[in-house]
């Protein structure tokens, strides 16, 4: 049986060669000499696309073609350029071919998920997000009181002055209020969402990603068209869990929301939440207040339980679904 494989492969596997008859009528063996003889007569056009079909010459091996290597036009790093030049000088030699193939195989193998960040950046970001989650909520409250409120107050009061007719900006920000509480709370639940969403995105089987790349999708077409829809359930479960966290979050809100038992549409007016109410009223509660506060705690418990169970179920189903696709 006669097959057609690449010369380097045949050589490395010690396959026996067949002699082929060329245009000049001579039977030639495949060697690097006969290959060079075939290419000697070829001319390279401007776009470098040349086909050497049935070459002239007595010593020319009849099936020879060029290999292309894709490189950037320019390299910013001169050392990289020099190394590449060296590599290709080496690769031109016969022995170099084998080395080059090995290197290429290694290089591809080391980067299985093409859309991943470099490990160091990924690791650093992950640790920073862990850090964000590890900071106690009372410290966030302190920070909100002394950093967030002074920073946003001028902008809020300007909005109230210019657009006070909008109910949303109906009052000015005197100190603690809804908006600072919202800002700090969103920072506090961010690590939960990030951590669960990261897990969901990593759980997408890499063959889906590879298939999308293989069809010619760009990185972002892959992310939007394939990865996000596949991970959507998990991400949504994470958002629900984070919502549950926010419902029960106490200290930052007790310090920032203003503890006013009122409901106002304005973003800048003080308000109250169940958890903050408990935190502020329980320490000094008399025998008449304790049952009322216990009832408030029961309502809070019911709300968070429903949301948390929903989130946990969503995540469970999501991980079952991606397992099926694997």
């Amino acid at each position, binding site marked *: 049986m006669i097959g057609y494989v690449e010369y380097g492969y045949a050589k490395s596997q010690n396959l026996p060669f067949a002699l082929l008859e060329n245009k000049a009528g001579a039977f030639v063996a495949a060697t690097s000499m006969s290959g060079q003889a075939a290419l000697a007569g070829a001319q390279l*056009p401007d776009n470098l696309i040349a086909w050497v079909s049935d070459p002239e010459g007595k010593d020319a091996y009849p099936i020879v073609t060029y290999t292309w290597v894709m490189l950037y036009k320019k390299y910013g790093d001169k050392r990289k350029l020099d190394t590449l030049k060296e590599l290709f000088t080496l690769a031109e030699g016969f022995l170099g071919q084998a080395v080059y193939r090995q290197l290429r195989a290694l290089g591809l193998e080391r980067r299985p998920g093409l859309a991943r960040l470099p490990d160091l950046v990924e690791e650093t970001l992950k640790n920073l997000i862990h850090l964000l989650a590890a900071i106690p909520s009372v410290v966030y*409250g302190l920070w909100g009181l*002394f950093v967030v409120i002074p920073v946003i107050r001028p902008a809020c009061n300007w909005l109230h002055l210019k657009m006070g007719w909008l109910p949303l900006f109906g009052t000015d920000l005197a100190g603690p209020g809804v908006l600072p509480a919202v800002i700090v709370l969103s920072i506090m639940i961010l690590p939960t969402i990030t951590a669960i969403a990261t897990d969901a995105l990593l759980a997408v089987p890499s063959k889906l990603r590879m298939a999308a790349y293989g069809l010619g999708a760009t990185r972002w077409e892959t992310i939007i068209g394939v990865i996000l829809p596949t991970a959507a359930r998990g991400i949504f479960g994470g958002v629900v869990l984070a919502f549950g966290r926010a419902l*029960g979050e106490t200290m930052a809100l007790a*310090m920032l929301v203003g503890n006013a038992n009122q409901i106002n549409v304005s973003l800048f007016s003080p308000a109250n939440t169940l*958890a903050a109410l*408990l935190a502020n009223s329980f320490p000094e509660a008399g025998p008449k207040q304790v049952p009322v506060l*216990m009832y408030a705690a029961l309502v809070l418990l019911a709300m968070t339980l429903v949301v948390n169970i929903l989130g946990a179920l969503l995540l469970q189903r999501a991980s079952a679904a991606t397992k099926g696709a694997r």
Partner: protein
Amino acid sequence: MAATPGSVSSGPFEGVDLDGLERSLRRPRTLVGIILSGIVTAMTLLALIPLFSVVFMLACRGGHRLSLALLTELPPAPLEVGGGFGNAIVGTFFIVGIATLLSVPVGILSAAYLAQASEENRLASAVRFAGKVLTGFPSILAGVFAYGAVVLSTGTFSPLAGGVALFILMLPTVMLTAEDAIRAVPAKMKEAAIGMGATSAQTTWMVLLPTALPGLLTGVMLAVARAAGETAPLLFTALFSNYWLVSHGQWNLMKPTASLAVLIYNFAGMPFDNQVELAWAAALVLVLLVLAANVAGRALSRGQVRY
């Protein structure tokens, strides 16, 4: 041959626009990709701004008050100068210690059961699900529970009540990480122990738990780190005190006790600069303690031998 630049007029690539294969910003899909990458990077940086701001403020406003007096003296009265929060540090360690003593046996032993229960075990999956739900349990409700169970029945605010509240918050973390750690022990070790004639109690006690020890400790340290920073459950269980836990040679076990977290909360709202500064310094100390516990926990599991 009059070839227009970029297109090929002969050969197998005839009519193919080769320039079109190059990466060009004029193509919408390239441009969209770059814009989206930019947005993602910007959002990541935006998410990190609060972190750097918190760390910067802690270092600035808390750092300059850091001294030995801070760790050894009692909290100052409103117009007093100086002072510290030594009693709050002791109180935090004491309350978290009680919580750890309660949660470690319960958490690890239940994890030993969960890890060895079969897949169909209804009780095990119910406990596991409850544990997962409990990780999202609002910390203030743990305080309400401890208030009802301990404060109302003993009639006084105490570190014990605070410890019970923190125990509820630590339990799911300890239990779930311990279950993972015990599950990670290779089956061959367990089978070898059973093959040698060990009872299942001996297997658990002498093979599974010692092998899983680094993982168990990681879970405990992470739970401690979380508990040390909790404020809400302590507000109306341990309350606060301006005095030492041990004074005049006797333990004030059934009296209100100070903790760092509650000190920060109390002093943050004060109009007196000295107390606000102390709140920042206490926040710095608390964050350092929490981070130390966190890093220690993660380092323990990183050094773990894989079988």
